[in-house]
């Protein structure tokens, strides 16, 4: 048996470790937080995950992350208009929260830097496992974000839009959100900016009994950015979470989604569209735990791959031993439109309860020739016909959201992508 020797550190690993040393004195946090940071950087010192780590099989972070920009104190990101008019905007410009954040009745908003300084956020900083590179990276460097608490019974009329905008350098933010029982809210998470930045962003959502939340992640990073994001949620009794993810940018993107049903009657819906162009590498990885009986979930992911883009979807549904009567369905459909593009998918089921209905389906195809013929026979030229079919393929997922304003807003984002990449 040969011995595994610790391989040489990559420039990116070295840059991260060095940056930690440089930044340490500027990072907020009490003793407990600082201990978590030390643990996290230790994990990074062991090396970024490679394809030998199963959860990173298709995204060899060690190989793909080949440059880490320095922190750039001069970078000045500009706020942008929210996707739905009248939304309450909480912006993070270059990783820094707004001292004068707008107020909404029933919603308490705190700057995360304060929660780090007083240490009250420390317990939530642990990565979830040894392969949680994004969690570790974020814990080591997180400096700010928003801590949001929506009081029991609050029904928000307008969406809350969390904007994480950068203009180069590195940003590491965290967005813990608690939604009280019976509360209803629409939350938009915007991820955008300019320049060759490295961003890590971790959202943590806890839904109380009967709460209903629609959370939209709209990721439109520039083609030069590295975007490493995590969305974690616990769904309580009879609570409903609809998560919509749109990836339409970035050079190296990994969006992890970790959801756990914690109360009976909990329902989770994931709808995702990945619009991949240029030479992006975009990975959406979901782990869904059905941990209690009588919970339901459906996941639909639609991917469009053009250019030299590489797309990945990994989705794992774990049904725990006592989670009887689980009903879980997952589908991942991909349109592969270019010969240089590629898409890999791994839809997994891990089932330990016997009285459940679980299923998954996955397809990878090109545009249906019959559909194309149908349109062209009616005088639509080939390019427009293809455009129509591709758009219909992804728009179908958006139309499932039952809020007109949101559907319109997302379709506008979709149109914009097709104008530049169609």
């Amino acid at each position, binding site marked *: 048996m040969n011995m595994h020797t610790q391989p040489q550190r990559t420039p990116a690993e070295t840059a991260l470790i060095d940056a930690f040393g440089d930044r340490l004195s500027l990072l907020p946090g009490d003793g407990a937080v600082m201990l978590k940071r030390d643990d996290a950087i230790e994990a990074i010192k062991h090396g970024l995950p490679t394809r030998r780590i199963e959860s990173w*099989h298709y995204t060899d972070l060690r190989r793909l992350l080949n440059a880490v920009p320095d922190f750039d104190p001069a970078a000045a990101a500009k706020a942008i208009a929210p996707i739905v008019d009248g939304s309450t905007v909480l912006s993070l410009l270059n990783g820094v929260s707004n001292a004068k954040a707008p107020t909404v009745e029933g919603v308490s908003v705190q700057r995360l830097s304060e929660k780090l300084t007083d240490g009250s956020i420390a317990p939530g900083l642990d990565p979830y496992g040894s392969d949680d590179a994004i969690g570790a990276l974020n814990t080591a460097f997180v400096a700010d974000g928003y801590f949001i608490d929506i009081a029991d019974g609050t029904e928000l009329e307008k969406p809350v839009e969390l904007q994480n905008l950068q203009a180069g350098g590195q940003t590491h933010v965290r967005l813990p959100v608690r939604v009280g029982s019976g509360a209803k809210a629409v939350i938009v998470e915007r991820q955008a900016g300019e320049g060759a930045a490295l961003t890590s962003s971790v959202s943590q959502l806890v839904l109380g009994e009967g709460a209903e939340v629609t959370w939209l992640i709209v990721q439109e990073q520039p083609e030069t950015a590295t975007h490493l994001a995590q969305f974690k949620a616990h769904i309580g009794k009879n609570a409903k979470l609809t998560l919509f993810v749109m990836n339409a940018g970035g050079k190296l993107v990994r969006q992890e989604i970790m959801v756990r049903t914690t109360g009976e009657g909990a329902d989770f819906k994931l709808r995702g569209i990945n619009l991949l162009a240029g030479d992006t590498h975009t990975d959406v990885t979901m782990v869904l735990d059905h941990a209690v009986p009588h919970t339901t979930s459906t996941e639909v992911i639609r991917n469009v791959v053009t250019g030299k883009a590489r797309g990945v979807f990994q989705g794992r549904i774990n049904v725990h031993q006592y989670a*009887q009567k689980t009903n879980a369905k997952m589908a991942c459909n991909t349109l592969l439109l270019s010969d240089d593009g590629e898409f890999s998918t791994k839809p*997994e089921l891990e089932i330990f309860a016997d009285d459940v209905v679980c*299923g998954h389906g996955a397809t*990878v195809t090109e545009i249906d020739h019959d559909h194309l013929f149908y349109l062209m026979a009616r005088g639509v030229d080939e390019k427009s016909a293809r455009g129509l079919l591709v758009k219909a393929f992804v728009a179908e997922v958006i139309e499932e959201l039952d809020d007109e304003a949101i559907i319109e807003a997302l379709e506008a984002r979709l149109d914009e992508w097709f104008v530049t990449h169609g």
Partner: protein
Amino acid sequence: MPAVQDTIDRVRKIDVDQYKYGFQTEIAVDKAPKGLSEDIIRFISAKKDEPSWMLEWRLEAYRRWLTLEEPTWARVNYPNIDFQDIYYYAAPKSTPGPTSLSDVDPEILKVYEKLGIPLKEQEILAGVQKTDASEFEEASDNVYKSGRVAVDAVFDSVSVVTTFKKELAQAGVIFCSISEAIREHPELVRKYLGSVVPASDNFYATLNSAVFTDGSFVFVPKGVRCPMELSTYFRMNEKNTGQFERTLIIAEEGAYVSYLEGCTAPQRDENQLHAAVVELVALDDAEIKYSTVQNWYPGDAEGKGGIYNFVTKRGDCRGDRSKISWTQVETGSAITWKYPSCILRGDDSQGEFYSIAVSNGYQQVDSGTKMIHLGKNTSSRIISKGIAAGFSQNTYRGQVSAHRKATNARNFTNCDSLLIGDQCGAHTVPYMEAKNSTAQFEHEATTSKISEDQKFYVMQRGIPEEEAIALIVNGFVKDVIQQLPMEFAVEAQKLIGISLEGSVG
């Protein structure tokens, strides 16, 4: 919904403590000393009277193996295997290479009789003994007479007998043990051995390359349709031995062969290692059908003992329009780690994988397939059914990939699993990788796939819903069972009888 009672009863019948083949036989054996070293490999090679290139090949594999690490990615748990605590060679003493059944130790014949190899096979075994000469004449005018099976019986490390050799030779088919092939047909073995599963392929395949002791060799020449089913029956008898067999099947242009494999082992408290390699090569327009009924000792109800079955099986559709089809019925082994795969290299080639895996007791199954699409217009089909009961873990792990140049690659995958009880687990881990825009891959893992239309059609004719579903399910399962040669179909039928009601993806 939970599994129906009928299914539960049927699965119980094949539960681990019902293992029928657990007897052991006292037979004088010739064993190599325990452990593994270059000397042991030289010993095996010398025993087999092998040419020097073969020994070199083995030694190279062994040196390679020393640098490899045991894979840990599969969903199986077992204590570390002490590779120095295994006998790598054990052969019945009284049979230094028999040529006909009459030379075989009657004790061994009794073993095969007791194993309940399908009745037909036993008649044939008897037939060889009695009518060796007359059979030859008969064969010449009726080579395509159906229902006959040529058997290669492998007992521990050696092949004890191969039947119907003469008749096969008449058709130009070579069917013999691999040791014999290395001696008699070195040019063929040298050309193809390791060309599908290279000696450096993976930990267990490399170990096998170093120490394989026997197995079957099949060569079907150009344009020949093999006149009968070929079969190998593996029996592990000796304590603390590992069985490392190597099978190589070559179908030349336009040839066809159907091959089946069965295996059993005595009931013992210790775990035994079985690490086989099977290589299939199909040239232009050739077709190979490979069926397995795997019934190694699965361990007792407490999970003690049983066979560790770490097998590398791979078929190479090297020629255009070639076809390789794997069918497996897996009920045995404490641990199964096996992914019969197809490399679809030739244009218009086809790969198929049909599997039924039943796990019980503390069995762990991690099995599936790989379909690697390289050529143009290649297609593959995967049908897998896993049934887990007791405390077992049943995993389907499969990979389908289309390379850049594999235009119009097609795949359809369907895997269903069924859980009986809440102490077991069923897992599905499919990998799909498309690098060609004309590839069309479909994967599904549900049972609700019985179409409403079909159900409506049947019910409209006055058949109640439950019967309608049963009818449709049976019709669907038939696809799998029909892939098996008659001789094994009966055995498999019992398993397939298990309704899929209540299954999950």
